[in-house]
């Protein structure tokens, strides 16, 4: 089965075409600057052949049209005709409370997603655009929606509810949803495979540290808590997001700085985090460089980042009642040994101890970085959300037949 995986953002569409017989990637790429002058399609074939094309791409439908065209083009393509695409898997950010698992996309599903736009105004509208465009172009090819929130649907009520009047939860579905679910799911399964034990008996903590950061406590394969909440702002310090702040502080600042709600939203999402604290960069690599150059604010940013991560890891060991596996993934998790080291330093009493050398040598690749005598096994595992989407898509489409 050949599955096309699509991730539609506000002005971009990322794609990967999988051959599910051997789970290989036939081609991948992305379209950027949709709706603007000078849109670009970058495409890489499995044999390493690369091509970039620029032109006018007015909307998501045109973008997907071009993606289909390049997949079957004689010079750059990997397919004879577009009918070879057996199914399409869409990454959808928010599944609300309704979708606890991936689903085959029907008219009703799209209608449901429309209702969740309120919960994820920045993402869901574009995800829906992508779905509609594919429907226009590929007609009856089955499509599957895989949700960022779905993996966290197993959180118990005391974990997902805020201490706010219950009626507000009923009225507006305000609760913690969590994100990066596909990534937490993938790396936890991968870690289980590496250690070759049963999921049911494992207690796992997965740290997805990229531009956005979240950490999840997984008990017997199920997410029981995660650091992102109603929106991705909650939890760990991130590149440009604040992570946890006292909500009353937001009210205080609204008055002090005479901000509109929109300004406050930008402040929390774009001006905060590593960027806001350091004034240097939102990129951990540049933060680390600046720390080495004795930049005091970069040092503070770095310390907040690792301190909070350590705080979350420790508390998750508590709620799990122990820990077997700790996993780092995402751009920072995979590539920053220093972050992994500092965020676990002194946690020997919880059974977490890294091997200095293994840790330092592991950059962007899968590896066990724990010390020989560590009770907890710590892994670095590059994430692969697209593969999860492809696998779920294949599974659901097969079940449909």
């Amino acid at each position: 089965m050949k599955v096309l995986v699509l991730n539609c953002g506000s002005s971009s569409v990322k794609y990967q075409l999988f051959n599910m017989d051997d789970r290989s990637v036939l081609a991948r790429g992305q379209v950027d600057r949709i709706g603007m002058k000078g849109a670009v399609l970058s495409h890489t074939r499995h044999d390493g052949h690369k091509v970039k094309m620029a032109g006018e791409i007015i909307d998501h439908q045109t973008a997907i049209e071009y993606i289909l065209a390049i997949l079957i083009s004689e010079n750059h393509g990997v397919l004879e005709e577009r009918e070879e695409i057996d199914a399409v898997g869409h990454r959808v950010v928010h599944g609300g409370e309704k979708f606890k698992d991936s689903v085959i996309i029907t008219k009703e599903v799209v209608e449901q997603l429309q209702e969740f736009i309120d919960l994820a105004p920045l993402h869901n509208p574009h995800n829906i655009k992508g779905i509609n465009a594919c429907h226009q172009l590929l007609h009856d090819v089955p499509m599957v929606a895989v949700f960022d929130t779905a993996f966290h649907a197993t959180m118990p009520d005391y974990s997902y509810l805020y201490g706010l009047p219950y009626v507000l939860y009923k009225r507006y579905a305000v609760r913690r949803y969590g994100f990066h679910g596909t990534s937490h799911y993938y790396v936890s399964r991968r870690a289980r495979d590496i250690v070759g034990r049963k999921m049911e008996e494992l207690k796992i903590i997965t740290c997805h540290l990229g531009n956005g950061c979240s950490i999840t406590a997984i008990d017997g394969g199920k997410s029981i808590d995660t650091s992102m909440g109603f929106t991705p702002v909650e939890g760990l310090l991130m590149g440009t997001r604040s992570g946890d702040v006292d909500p009353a502080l937001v009210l205080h600042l609204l008055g002090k700085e005479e901000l509109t709600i929109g300004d406050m939203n930008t402040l929390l999402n774009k001006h905060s985090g590593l960027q806001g604290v350091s004034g240097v960069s939102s990129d951990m690599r540049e933060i680390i460089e600046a720390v080495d150059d004795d930049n005091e604010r970069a040092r503070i940013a770095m310390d907040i980042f690792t301190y909070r991560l350590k705080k979350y890891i420790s508390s998750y060991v508590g709620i799990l009642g122990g820990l077997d596996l700790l996993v780092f993934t995402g751009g920072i998790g995979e590539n920053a040994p220093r972050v992994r080291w500092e965020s676990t330093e002194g946690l020997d009493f919880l059974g977490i101890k890294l091997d200095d050398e293994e840790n330092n040598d592991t950059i962007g690749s899968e590896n066990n970085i724990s010390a020989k005598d560590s009770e907890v096994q710590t892994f670095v595992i590059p994430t692969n959300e697209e593969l999860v989407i492809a696998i779920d898509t294949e599974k659901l489409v097969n079940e449909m037949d």
Partner: protein
Amino acid sequence: MTEQLERLVEENAMVRPQGEDVVTVVAVVGGGTMGQGLAQTISQHGIDVLLIEQDQDALDKATQELSDNLDQQINRWSITESDKRAILTRIEGTTQLEKVEECDLLIESIPEIIEQKKQLFEVADELCPPETVFVTNTSTLSITEIAAATEREDQVIGMHFLNPVHRIPLVEIVRGLKTSDQTFRFVQRFAGMLNKTAVEVFEYPGYVTTRVILPMLNEAMFVVMEGVASAEGVETAMKLGFNFEEGPLTLADKMGLDELLFWMETLFRELGDQKYRPCPILKKLVHAGRLGKKNGHGFFKYDENGRKIAGFDM
């Protein structure tokens, strides 16, 4: 490069989607405060902007002010450095009116002088493709009369934005006598693309916003003049009493007292009702050169950052 993509589509016998409602390039003619605000807001929503000024000096001034304004917004947390770069990349400044031939929509924000607006639309009518929609940003002049200068009267419409454009989520859409439903729906969708809520109004002096707010500001001045309350008292009463962000006199200073006077006189003349008679204090302040926040002194005094530094005195 574009050819490559088109060839790709042709080779594979694909049909490009029809983009009749698509707005990808908007020409903004006139780079004053309103023109800059429009350019920013439109660009911020992913649409390319041609900002057209009559000469290089005016264009440089507009571009500089726009950039300064964006810096202020970064300091106020509303946008980021990279937002600023993205906004500026999508704005092309030019002094060549001929470039309007590329645009899907043309908005004029030149001075409120009917002859100038008519002349602009007449020239643009020759330059633009037949489907381009013309928008006037006027709040005082007749859309019907401006439209008559073109051969596309059904495609001319008014959009009254309020300053600062990027912050005020409202636009009044004004039909001329011959404006078509299609044109109305087109700009309604365009307003939606800019995240503005549109209110349809009919061609009549002041529309809704100006017509309703002005007599209130004018009345506040009468209250001060008649000694009912001090200027500070009026401010406090209206702010707290009706949950206004700022008091009426501060708002008047912000809008510009000369503008207000011009407006009151227009409403008074056009509608002929005593209730639009400009308050004598307003006239007095304008004649004394106290124009409000923009020159540091209106009802109140302001420092160069626009912060209030002194109370009302006559």
